[in-house]
């Protein structure tokens, strides 16, 4: 498995783990009350920060574990990365329709922010999955 493929797995894992962690933390902090009444802002910011830290630390750990691979990025990696970013970008564009609609309908900030966070997570997951499919199944 190439360094770039490991990076795609890492990014996918970080996005999923932190989003699931966010939902669980929100439900716990709500303590049986509606999640919208929980302190969602600090929970969401913490999840986003954790996602960034996980990705960066993971990349550093991968680079330290296999320093010889860390700077080996070739034309195939670049093409696969471009495809993944395109798929992720399209996903983000489509998913952002929901928070946009919520804003137009003047819904509470909690729902708009959560719809945006979910859209970013979906884009990360779908984009990373597209890269991994290209690595595993082939890319023309």
């Amino acid at each position, binding site marked *: 498995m190439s*360094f770039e493929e490991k990076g795609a797995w890492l990014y996918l894992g970080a996005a999923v783990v932190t989003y699931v962690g966010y939902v669980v933390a929100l439900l716990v902090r709500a303590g049986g009350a509606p999640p919208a009444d929980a302190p969602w802002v600090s929970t969401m910011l913490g999840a986003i920060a954790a996602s960034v830290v996980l990705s960066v630390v993971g990349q550093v750990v991968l680079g330290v574990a296999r320093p010889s691979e860390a700077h080996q990025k*070739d*034309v*195939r990696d670049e093409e696969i990365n471009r495809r993944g970013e395109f798929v992720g970008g399209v996903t983000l564009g489509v998913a952002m329709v929901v928070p946009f609609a919520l804003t137009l309908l003047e819904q509470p900030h909690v729902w708009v922010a959560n719809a945006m966070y979910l859209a970013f997570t979906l884009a990360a997951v779908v984009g990373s999955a597209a890269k991994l499919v290209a690595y595993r199944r*082939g890319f*023309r």
Partner: protein
Amino acid sequence: MAKQTRVTNRIRTLRFTHDEMTQAELARRVGVTRQTVLAIEQGRYSPSLEVAFQIAHVFGVPLDDVFQYPDDGSADAPDRRDG
């Protein structure tokens, strides 16, 4: 099932006939990762024209000794050019 390209190649045979060159060695000489050489060999990735020429140069053979494309008769079709 892997998505196969229609481009076939003889890289594995050529490696064998060139002192059993390893994928890692070929990758180093072409300037790509070993995983990319593996993907090309298995038909999971069509290399760029530049990488294809570099691979042919490593083996010291013409490009079509390394890569082949199935002849489906379209080669006989006349060129379509503007004007």
